[in-house]
């Protein structure tokens, strides 16, 4: 019966073949808080914001840079290079003085702290080819998310279009180097947040949802039907979490995901920057695909246009429901926010589309 049901769905365009996308509504109602945020640091494609000692460390291509937040709000800060890595940094976690760094070429390296210099390139014989997220559970235990078994992190678009679901989450004991696989078959885990009760919150990007891994290994769904692809998770002072969403879900992309013939030809004949797929940057070239609502009317791009990039950061409350959101809409430039971090002065967001780290100041306490 399920084959018949699938055929009926295919014929009618319903069920799994329906291309509808949940709207930005409720707490996710669009605003301009990211677009009007203050620019703090300029760096090409910033990502992976973490706090280290009393400063903020982030990655930009293959460098790790550090800056401090003592400057008055609104002033530009310069970031000081901290480390240079052999390839692009794709995941970062910090604990005390230790930094765990995931690399584009594969593998993890630890710099500083007790396990300084350690490198891990495989888990139980399986190579770590796509480290997408790292988190320290405690000083000796590292949690690792491997996004996909078939594509490196820079080819995330290919993984999305291939319908990839080969991501894994594992726990590594840095002292004994024992590894335990916590979950497999995930669709591109991009965010990891250890919870106070021992569970682990994981952002599963291609399934646009947050799931929770229990101590016993049980997977439960926490937040589903997100209107954008979730990226990195960060802890929130008031409980809950901060979630960065790096690209919006659009109906045309959903449709292309259900058209195998077109997708195949597109992926073989056309360079990846011109695919019908989400992007981190606003449209830069006329060779990129254009959707009807993106046509400039009276020489202006409409904020609600179906762009392939978008800037979105969300605060989740204690029950992990969206409570507050920060947007940069289709006509803005602060798109591709892969990572956010809460500091005492406000919320930091790393926007790959604007090549900058911006800060949304904390609202005045009454």
């Amino acid at each position, binding site marked *: 019966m399920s084959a018949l049901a699938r055929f009926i769905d295919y014929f009618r365009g319903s069920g799994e073949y329906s291309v509808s996308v949940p709207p930005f509504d409720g707490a996710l109602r669009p605003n301009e808080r990211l677009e009007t945020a203050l620019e703090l640091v300029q760096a090409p494609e910033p990502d992976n914001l973490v706090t280290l000692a009393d400063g903020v460390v982030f990655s930009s291509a293959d460098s790790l840079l550090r800056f401090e937040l003592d400057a008055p709000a609104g002033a530009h800060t310069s970031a000081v290079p901290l480390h240079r890595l052999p390839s692009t940094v794709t995941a970062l976690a910090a604990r005390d003085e230790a930094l765990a760094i995931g690399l584009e070429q594969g593998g993890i390296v630890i710099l500083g702290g007790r396990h300084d210099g350690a490198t891990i390139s495989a888990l139980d014989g399986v190579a770590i080819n796509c480290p997408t997220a790292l988190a320290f559970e405690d000083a000796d235990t590292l949690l690792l998310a491997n996004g996909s078994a078939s594509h490196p992190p820079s080819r995330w678009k290919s993984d999305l279009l291939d319908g990839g679901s080969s991501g894994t989450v594992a726990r590594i004991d840095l002292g004994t180097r024992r590894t335990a696989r916590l979950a497999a078959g995930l669709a591109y885990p991009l965010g990891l947040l250890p919870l106070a009760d021992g569970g682990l919150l994981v952002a599963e990007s291609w399934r646009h949802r947050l799931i929770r891994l229990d101590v016993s290994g049980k997977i439960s769904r926490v937040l589903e039907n997100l209107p954008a692809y979730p990226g990195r998770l960060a802890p929130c002072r008031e409980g809950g979490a901060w979630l960065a969403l790096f690209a919006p879900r659009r109906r045309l992309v959903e449709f292309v995901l259900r058209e195998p013939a077109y997708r195949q030809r597109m992926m073989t004949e*056309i360079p990846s920057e011109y695919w019908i797929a989400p992007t981190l940057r606003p449209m830069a070239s006329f060779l990129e695909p254009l959707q009807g609502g993106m*046509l400039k009317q009276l020489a202006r791009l409409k904020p609600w246009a179906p762009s392939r990039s978008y800037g979105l950061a969300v605060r989740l409350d204690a029950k992990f429901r969206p409570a507050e959101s920060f947007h940069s809409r289709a006509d803005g430039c602060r798109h591709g926010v892969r990572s956010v971090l809460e500091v005492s002065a406000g919320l930091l967001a790393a926007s790959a589309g604007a090549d900058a780290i911006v800060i949304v100041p904390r609202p005045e306490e009454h």
Partner: protein
Amino acid sequence: MSESFSRWRARLLPGHIIGEILSKSWIDNAIPFLLLLLSIAFFSPRISDFFAAYSLEDNSRQLGELLLIVLGETIVVLAGGIDLSVGATFAMSTFACLGMFNALGWSVPSVMLGAAAIGGAIGLVNGLLIGYLRLRAFLTSLVTLIIVRAIFDALTLKYQIAVSMPNQKSDLWDFLGNGSWFGVPFSLALAAAIGLLCHITLTRLRLGWHIQAVGGARRSAYNAGIPVGRTVCSTYVLSGVLAALSGALYASRLGAAGSDTGVGLEVAALTAAVLGGVSLGGGRGSVVKGALGALIVTIVQTSLLRLGLGSGASEMILGILLLVAVAIDVKWLKNRLKVLAKVYVAPGYLALPAAEVVDERSPYALNDRLNAVELIGLGEIEGPEDVILDTAGNLYCGSRHGDVIRFFAPDHKKWDVYAHIGGHPLGHAFDRDGNLIVCVSGMGLYKVTPAQEIVKLSDETNRSWLSIIDDSRMRLADDLDIAPDGRIFFSEATVRFDVSEWMVDSLEARPNGRIICYDPRTATTRTVISKLLFPNGICMTLDGQSFLFAESWGCRITRYWFDGPNKGRSQVIMPNLPGYPDNINRSSDGHFWCAFVGMRAPTFDLALRMPGFRKRMVERVPHDDWIYPNMNSGCVIKFDLEGTVRDCLWDRNGVNHPMITSMREHQGHLYLGGSLNNRIGRLKLPGADPEWTGMRSYWQGGGA
């Protein structure tokens, strides 16, 4: 392999026909017609002599009588009412005719007139109460039914024998009920003739329009000054007369009137009307619908009788049929436009040659040359698709509000409405006498004289024989140019879409456009070239024998000779443009400017080679999410007749001119227009002839 399959399938199967047929106004009759075919297909194998001559003749005689009543009922329902008294009128008329013929001995014409009078009188009672006194149609006609039925019962009780005794013989009287012409029974012939009259009245005469208006929107009809009461009353009178006529034929056929004459006839008539698709709410229906319904009812009733089913079976089956028909009809009415929107766009296969590469070494290299424009009319003009200047330097452009706007020389700061035509004026050109000839999308070709008088030149061309759409009308007249002898050649970008949907034509990628010639000397219009991929800009070459035209979705520029030794020849001079060419105009150095309304993108070019993908996208994805040609970027090129690009100007970031549809050179400046923009740009061209104007180039400066 699958690509050549797509190509052949798109070529052989004309998928666009389905959408075009669905958009016709008579398509509503498709469902009752289908029901008719189904019922014939169901009953004919089960009844051996279904198509035998005698059974057909018998059935059609009954059909004729039912049809007369259904015609009356259709007209009443069309005006928003309902007539439940037709059964009683029918019975009353039967009795009266028998009385007049048998008992009173009147001649046949007087009997018919008397029957019509009785039917008209009953109808008049209905009409006065419902039309003038505004009583409820259902209850009033029900009461009339009861009262007339009661009178009929009383009369039959007393005089039944008297009226049934034949007193005179008349061949004419027998012919009414039993005669045929060449196998066609008289009742059917009469019903057909009256049906034709009713159809002409309903569709082409004022009374018919009034009836449909009153039925469609009674209050609006009243506000528009239509005599609602009189119209409604006349429908009931008509219904009464027709029912009485039917009764007369029945009287002649049966020769007796019993207590069950005409019982249930109103139900059968209503069933027939609704089965045929006449809306009970009023305003929607036609004679054809009623006739189809009557046909279905007759076939079902007589077939069930012949099959020997019990006495209640035919009513029950008819009731079920009615339920099904109403359900389908309601769904169809609600969803027709939705289905049409999805089915109408019929994507075809288009394989464009590989685009010329746009990089630093190509003649199309990106630059910022259009950053230096001065802006005219920023925020004051909307939709200046084409701009033109006269000898005094005034600038004219169209606007989406239907105006031709004139910006006054020399600084183009003050403006006025030069002419209000309607539609969206697109291409402009001046003729020898200084008249401004304009292509107005949605309307046709118009001329504005120097005295600001508007003259329609042409809005109709020859209809092509094999087109389902009526392509004699012009939906999207785009650009034009004028030959030295005064002939105007203009492009119609697409025959399948209106100006508000011209981008959907890019998804179709079918050769829907054509180039038309209007000759002012003979005031005739003729299609010159057809089956073009969105023909857009047209520009006369300097030899006066040929013109260049751009095909936007074809991404090419072609030269066509309309005169001289090469007449009729066409040659593609630029076959693989990297963008979609829009308007073409002359430049001061003997070459041509062309605007690119958008640039080709690899994903869209790939989609053009996969029509199934585009078809499913049109069906499943909302309109604003469709993939479109990239019209947020554009450039202006200067090219020559050999197809070499001599210059290229970009607004790289799309700040002022994201979509450029037209450019016009005038006295050393280039004026840019965009059909979705709210400004006109003026760019100084260093090195261009500061005296050169279009008027001088075409007409040596003559005219205004």
